[in-house]
C-alpha cells in the first residue's frame, strides 16, 4: 500500500495537468467541464487525505521519480507537513471552485483548466524535495494564476495585473539566483542533501537569498504591499483561491527550508522572527486604513502570514506546531471570509464599506459566515482561530518570547477593530435606498462581462431593479426592521453562493471544537521539521 502510494506521488501533479489539458477537448459550455474539474480536485483532495492518513504516524513517503538513484533523481516526498498543507490547499481549492461553478465564473474560457494546473503546481511545489524543481513548480502555479487573475478581473485598468506578474517574476528570478548560489557552494539542489548545510555561512547566505525571494511571494513585510493591490483586482473567488494556495505555499517553503537547511539556527530564526512580527503588525494596522471589505481582508492575509511565520521563527516543537495549526486555520478562514466577500460583491456589486449596509438583518447566512470567519480570524473561541492563536501565544511565551506573545495578543485587538469596521458599516446600518439599483447594475455587468469603467444602460438597470423588487420573497419570519420597505423583497445573496463560505466556516468551527485533531496532526508535522532525519532518510536512502 505504502509503496503503491509512493509510486503514485507524481500523479498529484500529472493527473490535474492531464485533465486540465483534456478540458480543452471538451466543449467549454458543456456541464462536463466543471464536473471533470471538480472531480479531479476532489480526487486530489482524496489523495491528500490518504497521504495525511498514511503520514499521520510520522512516516515519510518518498519516490525517486523515474527511479534514478537517490540524489540524482528528483524526489517527491510526503510527510505529515506536506500532506496536511496539501489537504488544506485542496480543500480550499474545492470550495473556491464550487463557488466559481455557482457564480458562473467557471464558465469563462479556460478557467477550470487553469484551476487544475494551479492545483497541480501547488502539489508539485509541496511534494518536491528539489529546489530547482520547486522553482519550476512555483512557475507552474504562477502561470495559471496570471490567467485566473486577469480573465476574471472586472478592472479595465491593468495596473494591478501587471504588478502581480512583475512582482512574482522578480521573486522567481531572485529565487533562481539563490538556488544557483546554493548549487555553486554545495553542488546539489536536493533539499535532503542540503540538510544542515546552513551551518556553513556561505550556504546560509545563499539560502537566505532564496528565503528573501520566497518572502516576497509570501508577502512578508516590507515586501507585502503588492498583495493587497493585486488580489483586490482579482475576482474575489480567485482571491480566496489564491489566499489558500499562493502565499501559503510560500510559507510552506519557508518552513521547509528553514527546518531542513537551517535546522532552526538561532541567528537566522531571530531575523525571521523580527520580520514576522513586523509583518503581523503592519498587516493588521494597514487593514484599518482600508475602506473596502476585500482590501481589509487582504491585509489580514498579510498579517496572518506574520502569525504563521512566528511559529517557525521560534523553532520549538510547540511553536512549529502552533505555526502549522495557524497556517491551516488561516487558509480555511481567509477562504471563508473572501468567499463571503465574493458573495456580497457578486450580489450587490461592491464590497466597499459605504456602498453596502444592513446585511445583518437581511442576509442571515452571510452574516453567520462572516461572523464565524471574523471571530475565528481574531482568534476568539470556539473557532479554529482560538486554538491556533492560543497555541501560538502559548508557544511564544513558552519560548521565552513573552514580548512576541503580547504582540500577538495586541494585534488580535487591532484585527478585531478592523473586522468591526466591516461589521459596523456593512452589516449594521440601513440598506441604501438605491441598493436595488446597484445590485441590478452589478448583475447586468456580470451577465455582460462589463469592465468597471464601462457604462451600463440605466433603463435596463431600472427595469432589472424593478423586477427584483416585485419578486416577493415570502417572509421567512415575522420580524421586520424599522423603516425598510423592501425587507422581504428584492435582492438577496443566492443560497448556493454562500454555502461554500459556510462550509469553510463550519470547518473552522469543527476545528475549534475538535482542535485536538488538528493540533495532533500539526505536532506530527512539527516533529518532522524539528528532526529532519526521517525526511533525509526517505529522500536519500541513508
Amino acid at each position: 500500500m505504502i509503496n503503491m502510494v509512493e509510486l503514485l506521488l507524481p500523479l498529484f501533479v500529472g493527473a490535474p495537468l492531464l485533465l486540465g489539458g483534456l478540458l480543452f477537448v471538451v466543449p467549454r459550455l458543456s456541464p462536463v467541464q466543471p464536473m471533470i474539474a471538480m472531480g479531479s480536485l476532489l480526487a486530489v483532495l482524496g489523495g491528500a487525505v490518504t497521504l495525511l492518513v498514511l503520514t499521520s504516524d510520522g512516516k515519510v513517503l518518498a519516490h525517486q521519480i523515474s527511479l534514478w538513484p537517490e540524489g540524482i533523481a528528483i524526489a517527491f516526498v510526503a510527510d505529515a507537513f506536506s500532506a496536511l498543507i496539501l489537504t488544506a490547499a485542496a480543500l480550499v481549492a474545492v470550495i473556491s471552485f464550487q463557488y466559481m461553478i455557482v457564480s458562473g465564473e467557471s464558465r469563462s474560457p479556460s478557467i477550470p483548466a487553469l484551476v487544475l494546473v494551479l492545483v497541480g503546481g501547488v502539489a508539485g511545489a509541496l511534494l518536491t524535495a528539489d529546489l530547482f524543481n520547486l522553482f519550476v513548480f512555483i512557475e507552474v502555479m504562477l502561470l495559471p494564476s496570471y490567467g485566473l487573475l486577469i480573465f476574471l478581473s472586472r478592472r479595465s485598468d491593468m495596473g494591478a495585473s501587471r504588478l502581480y506578474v512583475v512582482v512574482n517574476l522578480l521573486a522567481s528570478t531572485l529565487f533562481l539566483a539563490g538556488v544557483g548560489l546554493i548549487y555553486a557552494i554545495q553542488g546539489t539542489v536536493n533539499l535532503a542533501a542540503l540538510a544542515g548545510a546552513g551551518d556553513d555561512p556561505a550556504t546560509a547566505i545563499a539560502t537566505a537569498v532564496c528565503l528573501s525571494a520566497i518572502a516576497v511571494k509570501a508577502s512578508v513585510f516590507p515586501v507585502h504591499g503588492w498583495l493587497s493591490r493585486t488580489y483586490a483586482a482579482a475576482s474575489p473567488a480567485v482571491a480566496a483561491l489564491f489566499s489558500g494556495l499562493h502565499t501559503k505555499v510560500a510559507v510552506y517553503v519557508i518552513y521547509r527550508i528553514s527546518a531542513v537547511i537551517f535546522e532552526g539556527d538561532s541567528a537566522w530564526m531571530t531575523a525571521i522572527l523580527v520580520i514576522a512580527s513586523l509583518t503581523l503588525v503592519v498587516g493588521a494596522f494597514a487593514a484599518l486604513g482600508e475602506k473596502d471589505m476585500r482590501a481589509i481582508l487582504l491585509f489580514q492575509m498579510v498579517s496572518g502570514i506574520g502569525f504563521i511565520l512566528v511559529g517557525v521563527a521560534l523553532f520549538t516543537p510547540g511553536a512549529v506546531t502552533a505555526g502549522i495549526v495557524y497556517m491551516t486555520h488561516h487558509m480555511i478562514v481567509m477562504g471563508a471570509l473572501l468567499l463571503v466577500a465574493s458573495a456580497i460583491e457578486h450580489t450587490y456589486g461592491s464590497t466597499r464599506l459605504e456602498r453596502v449596509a444592513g446585511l445583518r438583518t437581511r442576509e442571515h447566512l452571510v452574516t453567520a459566515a462572516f461572523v464565524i470567519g471574523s471571530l475565528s480570524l481574531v482568534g476568539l473561541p470556539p473557532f479554529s482561530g482560538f486554538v491556533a492563536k492560543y497555541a501560538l501565544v502559548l508557544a511564544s511565551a513558552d519560548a521565552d518570547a513573552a514580548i512576541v506573545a503580547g504582540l500577538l495578543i495586541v494585534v488580535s485587538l487591532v484585527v478585531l477593530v478592523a473586522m468591526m469596521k466591516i461589521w459596523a458599516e456593512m452589516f449594521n446600518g440601513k440598506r441604501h435606498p438605491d441598493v436595488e439599483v446597484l445590485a441590478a447594475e452589478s448583475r447586468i455587468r456580470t451577465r455582460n462581462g462589463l469592465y468597471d469603467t464601462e457604462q451600463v444602460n440605466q433603463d435596463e438597470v431600472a427595469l432589472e431593479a424593478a423586477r427584483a423588487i416585485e419578486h416577493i420573497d415570502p417572509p421567512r419570519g415575522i420580524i421586520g426592521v424599522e423603516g425598510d420597505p423592501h425587507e422581504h423583497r428584492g435582492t438577496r445573496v443566492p443560497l448556493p453562493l454562500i454555502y461554500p463560505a459556510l462550509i469553510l466556516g463550519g470547518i473552522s468551527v469543527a476545528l475549534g471544537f475538535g482542535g485536538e485533531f488538528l493540533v495532533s496532526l500539526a505536532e506530527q508535522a512539527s516533529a518532522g521539521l524539528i528532526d529532519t532525519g526521517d525526511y533525509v532518510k526517505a529522500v536519500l536512502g541513508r
Partner: protein
Amino acid sequence: MSLALSIGLLAAAGVFLVLQRGMIRIILGFVLLTHAVNLLIIAAGGIGRRDAPFIGTDTSMAADPLPQAFVLTAIVIAFAITVVLATLAVVGKGDDDTEADSSLELSDPEDSASEKSGDLK
C-alpha cells in the same frame, strides 16, 4: 572575473530598467536580469571546465551539465513569462505606462485621514 563582471553588469542594467517607468523597460530589464541569473547558474557549476558535455569526447574537462539543464529550463520559462508580460503591455486603458493614475484606488489616503466619527452611525 570577467564573467562575474558581466553578471554584475547585466544585473545592474536589469534592475535599473525594471525600476523605470513603462512595461517595455520592465520587460527588457527582466530579460537582462534573467541573463545575469542564467550566467550565474552556469558559473555555479564552475567555469574551469569548459568542454561541451558530450559523451564520446573526452569528458575530463567537460563542463558540469546540470546547471546547463537548469538554464535551458529557465530560459524557456522566462520566455513564456516575457510573452505574458508583453501581452499585458498592450492591453488596458492607456499605453504601457506603469504610473498612470489608477482611477480605482482602493483607499485614498486623504479619505482615510479625514475619516469622521460619523462613519459608525
